[in-house]
């Protein structure tokens, strides 16, 4: 069970003066149960890549298969393949449009042709998942909520589709630290309690380091690194710099200790582990 991208290339505005190769010769397999973080500077091809995962963009060359099904073919099975993949765009609250929170979240499941009872079950479950009280919010206008609440309604709309693969493009952009922790807390909970696969694009290296078990670094339309976040952040700092991305602030700090002769572990991803490592080093001295 996986999403397989085989020899994917995508060219924007082909055969015009603005022709641009956005991604070239991408080969990856996203396996079920993985939590994949994707990083790369603006224009590195991250978003183009994401949009191939559920058929929003059709590759100029190559093939995308979801659980063995080519999602760009024209048959019914391709549609089912695409429906396995739920996509939360950047600033998803801009896409809210219904009159009530309930209706907005119900839009997707209804579109998939579900019975009203099933729709209701899914809306309730999705609202519970994102921490919105059904009683309190179901009949409110989604457009009059706070930014963080709107973001949660939008995410609930995708969760209600019960995707096997959840793709999130910068879900925490513009949220304050508490809002960010809430959203990520819910995503981690979902990941741990179900067999969902998560693909997360973020500029926040700290979050990626903390959550993902696989990291893909994009640069110039290609995959420049692919491996465990701890290994990449510890061993590939120069390549990361070349790819125009930062290492997490904690790794950077640990790196500075080492440079000044205090031997600490640079692969730590949590503050607790970092404190332990620094304390051990200081006391050893």
């Amino acid at each position: 069970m996986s999403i397989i991208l085989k020899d994917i290339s995508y060219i924007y505005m082909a055969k015009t003066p603005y022709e641009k190769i956005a991604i070239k010769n991408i080969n990856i397999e996203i396996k079920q149960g993985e939590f994949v973080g994707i990083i790369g500077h603006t224009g590195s091809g991250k978003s183009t890549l994401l949009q191939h995962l559920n058929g929003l963009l059709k590759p100029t060359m190559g093939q995308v298969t979801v659980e063995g099904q080519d999602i760009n073919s024209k048959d019914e099975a391709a549609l089912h393949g695409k429906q396995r993949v739920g996509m939360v765009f950047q600033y998803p609250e801009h896409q809210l449009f219904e009159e009530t929170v309930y209706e907005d979240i119900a839009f997707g499941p209804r579109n998939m042709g579900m019975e009203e009872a099933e729709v209701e079950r899914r809306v309730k479950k999705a609202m519970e998942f994102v921490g919105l009280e059904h009683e309190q919010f179901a009949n409110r206008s989604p457009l009059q909520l706070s930014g963080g609440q709107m973001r949660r309604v939008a995410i609930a709309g995708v969760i209600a589709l019960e995707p096997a693969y959840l793709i999130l493009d910068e879900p925490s952009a513009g949220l304050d630290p508490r809002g960010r922790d809430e959203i990520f807390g819910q995503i981690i909970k979902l990941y741990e309690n179900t067999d969902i696969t998560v693909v997360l694009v973020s500029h926040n290296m700290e979050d990626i380091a903390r959550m993902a078990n696989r990291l893909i670094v994009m640069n110039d339309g290609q995959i420049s690194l692919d491996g465990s976040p701890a290994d990449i952040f510890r061993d590939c700092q120069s390549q990361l710099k070349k790819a125009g991305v930062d290492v997490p602030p904690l790794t950077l700090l640990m790196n500075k200790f080492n440079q000044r002769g205090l031997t600490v572990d640079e692969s730590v991803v949590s503050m607790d582990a970092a404190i332990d490592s620094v304390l051990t080093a200081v006391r050893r001295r």
Partner: protein
Amino acid sequence: METFITVKEMCHSYTAHDGQQVMALDHINLSIYEGEFVAIIGANGSGKSTLAKHFNALLLPSSGQCLVKGLDTSDHDNIWPVRQRVGMVFQNPDNQIVATVVEEDVAFGPENLGIEPTEIRRRVTESLKVVDMEEYRHHSPHLLSGGQKQRVAIAGVLAMHSDCLVLDEPTAMLDPKGRQEVLSTVCKLHKEEKITVVYITHFMEEAVVADRVIVMNSGKVVMEGLPSEIFSQVTLLKELGLDVPVAAEMAYRLRQHNIDLPKKIITDEELVVTLCP
């Protein structure tokens, strides 16, 4: 130091969806001094943006006063002079660019002020040079990166000859490189052009470079001081739903383990040098 913006007992209230009055700003008293770089931090909904929008009369106080260079923003005759002095840059780079060519976008403000074309040209060149975007003057803005767009927006403010720049989360939608571009441009304007800067952000490592940090919560100013004074109060900031820079948090936690460290440590360099002398 002379004050640039003075806020006295200012409130801003509005009617919420359920008909109740909400106090978005609750008796704020505040001064921004000329040439100062002030960072404002606070959780979503704490009133940061509402406060900033009063600085150039996009919003008017429900009660109390907001004075810009002594001009009361509530006096209708003062609106244009106030907006000429205080320029605003918003979060979304795509929402604030109006023209189809970079130089025309920068010229939009001065054109509206009725300035001579030769003078406009001079100002556009000068402003684009300051934000390091001159080579893009004939480009189409929609093909620029987010950081470049924000710098064009800043140039637009400079071309108005504003002497105060208010930025409302200008880096929230940018990647790390874009964020760095915008922040260093703002620091340069502050240092070299003596521009007064009010900088709203969720990124604590950006607030660290300011002269003074103001912390807002529930429509009130709850803390105010040097970055080192603010960010050393780790528990208080966390209670307000805010972050602290990594070095400040580590220093705080190490102190709890009886490692002797001064309270004012908030940057990596300070921490590393103190621990490894």
